[in-house]
């Protein structure tokens, strides 16, 4: 652990950054994001099984941008968001110093013992345990608990249902939505100056938490992230109503991979999925 503090301090002392985004512990099974703007503020920095937040969400915030060059502690999944932000011109590579974390899985939520039962589902088939992009790398990868990918099973199950059955499932789920937009707030890729859900002329998405407003919102949210979502699953963790948002996000990621062999957040130089095209894109569904 001293290692982390030393690294974080050195980022300041070597003049590489003006502020560092990291995690500090609240109790043994909880952390919170922390922005250190002075070397001594990094003393409580920690890396454990509870560094759940995707800190990249802060990289596009004005309050953070004002510091100039930022250091960030980032797991492989978080780095995928950095890559996506680079693809979308939201940050400049030279403005971010990435301390990549070799990751052995994190807990699904705070206040639980880490095990095969409680490991976050996104960690199960993780292919970026060593981040794809970093300025320095810490930690080592070790054996990780194995568990069933319940979400994938659920997606497969839904796919096999009739339209009416699918509709009923999602109507019930979306009905829970209270339009608090915590999902949007937690998403590193929801950086629009004004979300389309807040656009009033014309109002494409009803603002009230009505059934049809909820339906449109959840569909458009998933669509605007299609081919972009890097699967950090922070939206779902943030949702107070426990809507399984990752069903839609993961389904879209699966489509991206099946249709276009595209996995988001791997290479900043890859053209984005939406925004590029191939002459041979599927058109069997078009008459």
């Amino acid at each position, binding site marked *: 652990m001293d290692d982390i503090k030393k690294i974080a301090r050195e980022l300041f002392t070597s003049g590489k950054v003006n502020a560092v985004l990291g995690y500090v512990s609240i109790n043994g099974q909880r952390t919170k994001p922390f922005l250190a703007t002075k070397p001594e503020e990094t003393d409580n920095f920690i890396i454990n099984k509870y560094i759940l937040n995707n800190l990249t969400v802060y990289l596009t915030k004005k309050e953070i941008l004002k510091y100039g060059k930022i250091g960030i502690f980032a797991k492989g999944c978080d780095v995928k968001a950095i890559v996506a932000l680079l693809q*979308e011109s*939201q940050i400049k590579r030279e403005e971010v110093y990435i301390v990549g974390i070799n990751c052995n899985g994190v807990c699904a939520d705070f206040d639980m013992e880490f095990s095969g039962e409680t490991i976050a589902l996104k960690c199960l088939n993780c292919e970026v345990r060593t981040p794809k992009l970093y300025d320095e790398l810490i930690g080592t990868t070790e054996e990780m608990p194995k568990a069933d990918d319940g979400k994938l099973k659920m997606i497969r199950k839904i796919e096999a249902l009739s339209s009416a059955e699918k509709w009923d499932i999602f109507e019930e789920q979306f009905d829970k939505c209270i339009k608090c937009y915590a999902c949007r707030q937690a998403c590193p890729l929801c*950086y*629009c*100056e004004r979300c*389309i859900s807040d*656009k009033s002329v*014309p109002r*494409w998405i009803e603002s009230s938490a009505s059934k049809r407003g909820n339906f449109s919102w959840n569909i458009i949210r998933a669509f605007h992230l299609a081919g972009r979502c890097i699967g950090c699953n922070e939206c779902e963790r943030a949702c107070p109503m426990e809507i399984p948002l990752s069903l839609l996000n993961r389904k879209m990621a699966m489509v991206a991979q099946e249709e276009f062999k595209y996995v988001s957040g791997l290479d900043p130089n890859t053209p*984005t999925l939406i925004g590029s095209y191939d002459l041979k894109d599927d058109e069997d569904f078009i008459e």
Partner: protein
Amino acid sequence: MKIGVFICHCGENIGRTVDCVRVAKACSFFPNVVHSVEYKYMCSDPGQNMIKQAIKDLKLDGVVVGSCSPHMHEKTFRKAVSDAGVNPFLCEIANLREHVSWVHDDKEVATDKAIDLMRFAVEKVKRNAPLKTIQVPVTKRTLVIGGGIAGIQAALDVANAGYEVVLVEKEPSIGGHMSQLSETFPTLDCSQCILTPRMVEVYQHPKIKLMTYSEVEKVEGFIGNFKVTIRKKARFVDDTLCSGCGDCAIKCPIKKKALSEFDEKLAFRSAIYVPFPQAVPNIPVIDKEVCTYFKNGKCSMCVKVCGRNAIKFDQQDEFISEDIGAIIVATGYKLYTIDKKPEASEIKGYGEYGYGKYKDVVDGLQFERIASASGPTSGEFQRPSDGKTPKKIVFIQCVGSRDESKGFSYCSKICCMYTAKHAMLYKHKVHDGEAYVFYMDIRAGGKMYEEFVRRAIEEDGVKYIRGRVSRIYEEDGKYIVKGEDTLAGVPIQIDADMVVLATAMVAQTDAPKLAQTIGMPYDNYGFYSEVHPKLRPVESSTGGVFLAGACNSPRDIPDSVAMASAAAAKALVLFGSDMLEREPTIAFVNENLCAGCFYCKKVCAYNAIEVKQIKDKNGNVIKEVAFVNSGLCQGCGTCNATCPSKAIELIGYTDEQIYAEIAALM
């Protein structure tokens, strides 16, 4: 807004199936509609005057006409509205004829639909903004890309009309494939004899700026206003000093290392060379790959013999920028190399014909060089392997053409004719020789073409066999050609001394790259697409870009020349006016909302989106946002649909307008 609604009966065309009176009545109850009438012929003078009068009397500031398709009379009605002092873009058309009265029988249903369409249009016009057509000046200079016969013809036509032309050719000389040909069908006149005067005319023309050994690097701008960057590749010879004496090439010690491109690899050339004696310009280039100086610095013979110090080993590529109004693309074709699978292609190729393996199996252009008086054999028929006169030649047509499984599904169009010509030329010189042609069909459509093929068969005794060749192999110094005579229904075997393959005409390898540079469409084969195959055959859908010759599809010389003249005429039409008018339906950016993700830039096919820096008062960049270059934007709206927060919108088709139309469904 005070909207006037005008329903046209179109004689009986609309009135027969749509109750126009009921439609007008229904429209009069729409919000903001203050005037709603119907009339027999709205497009007639009295009809138009009704609109004008109503605008004046009732101070209308929006007009909806229910009539025929906007593609028919939108301009008419917009002009009428404009004449009466209302902005023409505050006039909308509902299509009550093509989309209603002509396609439905039930009068009730048709009338209901007509009312719906009127409601859509009224809702849209309420949200229309007064717009001004964009006026852009025209630069009256033409860029011709490709110096083959099509490019030469186009350049001369435009230049002779008095306008400047920049002719860019990637090879060291203009002339293209036509300069390689021996004699041309169906007249058998010598290709070079008719071509070289044109080449010289280009060279000497005061209005033509000739840039050989050059390539188009970048095309920015739009119709009438292109900015083109041309890469002038280093020749390592100063063209202002060189007198074209040719001493350097004669003295160059590299004699047997480089194969001549002009002679289709049937002969060698030196490291410093002009491609052929009649080359225009007659200025050599140095082939860096084989030149000893560039390898180890040990030779500089050319420098020693050049009396004018024209050799410049340190010459660099130059980039030249030109202002251009019209672009004529005439980049031609290449022959399908059958032993090699084309890059990124499913095509299997014809390995069984032994091209590339047997020296005496040649393609059409190689045979042209053998037959040509300026060729490596000075026009004597000698086969490449041993120089002996072939006594039996087999010609195979449709190698790669009309063969979906192994080649291309299209017909290359010229091979029937040139194969007949080849066989004829051979028989004229080798009287005791035998010429066999394997063909699928004879396609000799063209002036004097059928007669030409008949002459080959009847007067010159060329033997035509309908059928395909399955295999060629070597045995005892002969090439055994195995095939089938499908008319007789028997297998056939010919022991040939030489085989000529009429390989398919295909698009240039880098054709898609140039298309992307210019921003114009091309088909699956790499041929450039015309707007309309019948009515607009020489225009690309990119404004101000015209097509000539075989870059569009396989074509012979007369067709290419005709197309080149047509393309030149299109460029001249463009130059007929000083200003161009453009629809003002273009995208604009709300900079406050733009987050600078630049998805709009990624999807823009016209490079119309630029990056604009927003700075605070101290000059610090706060953020970068999208900016629409109104000259480049063509108004497709793809950016608008892609933008997640709708910070970029298409004027004339804004979200608000479309929303209103959707909402009007209820």
